[in-house]
């Protein structure tokens, strides 16, 4: 690993994310571009998903990928080798021609690929000067800012889009969690954190006198938080603004739970049958989307973030057996996504929803006893009815001679390299431009290019990956 990054956050000091700052850029006009009647759902595989066991070579094709894989992922007790028979075919690696297969735990994602053509598998996504720290690399993916560019420091990549597109009173984003997602971080609009809609109501004492005194309590609360929101002290104003959005949304959002349960009982049941956290989290997203689709007043979220922890598989990872941890995680995510997709299809919204799946890094080719240490670049997924299904980007070069000193595959932007990497910012930029409706110039301001050797740095952004149907 070369941690010799030119400072993670220049302008501020190194370390954690800086305090959210209002994004302002002369090239970005307000309300010029937006997502329209579409939705974007971002799903984080937290912990570092083993990309090499997520999309693996079934054969060598015109190179030696399968040999390299077999050389480091063993069979037998604790071995992580996925056999060609276990892998679910998705197509060929553009660079090497090797046939590629998905981890068997992802069979539901494979169904969406085969039956609907609704999955883009984007291989080898990473960035220059990679970090093996969960925290640093997660921040880099959240901010879209690997080299500490001060122009975009401290804000989430999608947060910058929200700040540039929505006004101060808008509530365009929801995190399904009890804390905010770094991806949506900014301070120009409000983002909600909701774990479960049915628990999101505002609490009033049920003492019966004076009608519970609710109107007076509400007015006083609103006055206090409005005043705090206008205060110059940064934490007080943050709390104030959050409280105002919370009060309003605590009245608008909780009814979405009953609305969905009443009107979509069959779909509701389908999530229950998956019975895992990611399914339950995605169901909360579905309830909100359903509310927006039904025109519920005060519900206008278009951007969602959720995560599945547990991908830090230093141990107990397992190969293709259904009891392995990686299998269980993948099955949870894929089964949940399939139910979600079918729900959206039934709502008539599948063509207007895009799910973007990311992880902070992949894992080491050479395994340890039954797990893997931190690695470099790995796959992303886009899922949706308007997603142009298939394989994009090249498999990382895992041939021994190509690995770096730590045994990780190397990020490359060399045009003629058959294993050329995909910079994750090209994926973000393509989504911002072709899904969120921003112009090339606006996206450039959101995701400024690196300087440096064009073979090793991201100097020629491409926000026109053909990830969406025309």
């Amino acid at each position: 690993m070369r941690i010799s990054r030119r400072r993670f956050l220049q302008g501020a000091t190194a370390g954690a994310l800086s305090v959210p700052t209002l994004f302002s850029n002369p090239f970005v006009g307000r309300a010029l571009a937006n997502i329209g009647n579409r939705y974007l759902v971002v799903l984080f595989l937290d912990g570092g998903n083993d990309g090499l066991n997520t999309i693996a070579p079934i054969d060598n094709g015109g190179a030696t990928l399968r040999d390299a894989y077999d050389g480091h992922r063993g069979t037998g007790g604790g071995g992580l080798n996925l056999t060609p028979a276990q892998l679910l075919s998705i197509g060929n690696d553009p660079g090497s021609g090797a046939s590629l297969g998905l981890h068997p735990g992802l069979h539901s994602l494979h169904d969406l690929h085969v039956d609907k053509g609704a999955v883009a598998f984007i291989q080898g996504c990473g960035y220059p000067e990679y970090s093996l720290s969960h925290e640093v690399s997660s921040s880099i993916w959240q901010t879209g800012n690997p080299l500490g560019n001060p122009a975009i420091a401290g804000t989430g990549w999608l947060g910058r889009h929200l700040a540039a597109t929505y006004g101060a009173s808008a509530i365009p984003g929801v995190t399904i969690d009890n804390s905010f997602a770094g991806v949506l971080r900014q301070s120009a609009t409000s983002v909600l954190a909701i774990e479960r809609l049915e628990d999101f109501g505002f609490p009033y004492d049920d003492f019966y006198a004076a009608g519970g005194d609710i109107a007076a309590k509400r007015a006083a609360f609103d006055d206090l938080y409005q005043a705090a929101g206008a205060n110059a002290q940064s934490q007080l104003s943050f709390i104030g603004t959050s409280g105002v959005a919370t009060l309003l949304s605590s009245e608008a959002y909780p009814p979405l739970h009953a609305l969905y349960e009443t009107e979509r009982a069959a779909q509701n049941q389908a999530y229950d049958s998956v019975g895992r956290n990611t399914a339950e989290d995605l169901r909360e997203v579905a309830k909100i989307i359903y509310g927006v689709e039904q025109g519920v007043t005060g519900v206008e979220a278009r951007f969602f973030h959720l995560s599945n922890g547990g991908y830090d598989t230093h141990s107990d990872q397992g190969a293709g057996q259904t009891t392995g941890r990686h299998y269980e995680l993948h099955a949870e995510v894929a089964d949940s996504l399939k139910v979600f997709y079918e729900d959206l299809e039934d709502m008539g919204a599948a063509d207007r929803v895009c799910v973007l799946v990311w992880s902070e890094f992949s894992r080491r080719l050479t395994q340890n006893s039954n797990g893997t240490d931190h690695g470099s670049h790995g796959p992303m997924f886009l899922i949706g009815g308007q997603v142009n299904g298939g394989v994009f980007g090249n498999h990382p070069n895992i041939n021994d001679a190509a690995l770096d000193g730590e045994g990780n595959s190397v990020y490359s932007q060399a045009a003629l390299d058959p294993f050329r990497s995909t910079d994750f910012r090209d994926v973000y930029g393509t989504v911002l431009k072709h899904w969120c409706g921003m112009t090339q110039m606006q996206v450039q301001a959101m995701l400024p290019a690196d300087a440096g050797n064009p073979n090793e740095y991201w100097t020629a952004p491409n926000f026109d990956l053909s990830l969406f149907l025309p």
Partner: protein
Amino acid sequence: MGNELTPLTTDEVRHVLRRTGFGAPPNELSKLLGAVGGNPTRGSVADVLLSFQEKGFRPNGNEFEKAHNKWINYLIKPKSALQEKLAIFFHDHFATSSSVVGNVRLMGGQINTLHLYARGNFKNLVKAINKDAAMMEMLDTVRNVKAVPNENYGRELLELFTLGVYDLAGNPNYLQEDIVQIARAFTGWDYFSNKGIPYLRDYEHDFMVEFPERGDKVIFQSTGGFGSGGMDITADGEGENEIDTVIDIIFEHTDTDGKNTVARRLAARLLEYFCHGGFGEPGPAEIAVIDQVIDESNFDTSWNLTPLLRAIFVNDAFFETAGVAPYSASTKKSVKWPIDYFISTIRLTGIRLQKSERRVAGGNYLGAVGHLTNMGQILLEPPSVFGWNWETAWISSATLLARFNFARDIVAARSVFNPAKLVDLDATDPGEIVDLVTDVLGIVDQVTPAEHQIFVDYLTDDGANPTIDLRDYEIRNTKLHGLFALVMQSPAYQLH
């Protein structure tokens, strides 16, 4: 510039108690004032607080909730609130989660260790954590064997427990190669499962003689002020000694300013914890304070936490958040941690929790684990090895609602919440009632005139009822209970 001799007002002593403990209950205040002979100074107050006995406390039980609630009970009536605040700081610093460890008794052992070292020797604490059974499970030390070294502990030891990824100038403190070397030094450790006692399995340890091609274990060849040769981990003997030697070497690491890296990072984190978030991203002014408290305490050579904490508690930086309302852009404040919000509210309102769940007997009748889960901080269960995210990261619509629910549940718990014990029911002037309630809850000086008026308008229904008869059952249960909830739900009460 104040110093240890600077006298403190009673309000400032309250501030000290709030920041070093959980709220400033009247009995603790009078006890502290008595201990300093009625003439409190920054130094004398700090000395009293830092004289707590270095005794352990073991939150254990045969299942998670019992252990959690044993600690909750202790936090409400601690031997030393400062010792608890420090134990929680180190619990965040060496974040270990019971569900990953899979054995709550081992967690109890770790928390006990954090109590024992809370104001002791930090270097010895890190050495103890090396061999702590819960940590060995958390970060895979027990799965780190010579044939397949596991880097998990070595990485977090450098990144989180000691050096940090970058120094204060933004330069990297170590390289991946250093982690690999440290992982090798830590191979072979395990513990006896019943008592958690650590031991080295020689046959799983990476002795140089067995792997001559790997050569010496050397770290910091390119970073850390040791020159191109780095430092040889095996210099003090191979095997058992190596993991202590690793710590000795790390604690000599200097950053690109030539300062001790571990001392600066820990001082910065303690300053951030006890003062404000500015120390999370220190600029030149904050860096000067970090270096000052190290110089005054010799922490970078003694590693003794007591003098370092004393230097922090007498520093002007510690009093920056003592400012009163109204706040301006330059006012420093810090967001109360959920555990602080929870424990201090229980202490200040005097309510008793019920049953083994430690329930608040009103509203949703949630137990302590339920409330704190919703607020975003379950003790013994930090979200990851990074611990919790501080300051405004504590605040979201979900966690705010959790705090609001807790406040509502308290005032709705009419069997245990008795405001007649807290305020004079003969008070009829709404402004006076607001003063009484905000004083009980410790924010009387943090309320602006405009906020005061909002509370008054609430009590009087915008002036319709200019006097309030708190002896009237319905008025008391509506408006006085309502005011308590509103103050606990107010923006100012989320800060300290």
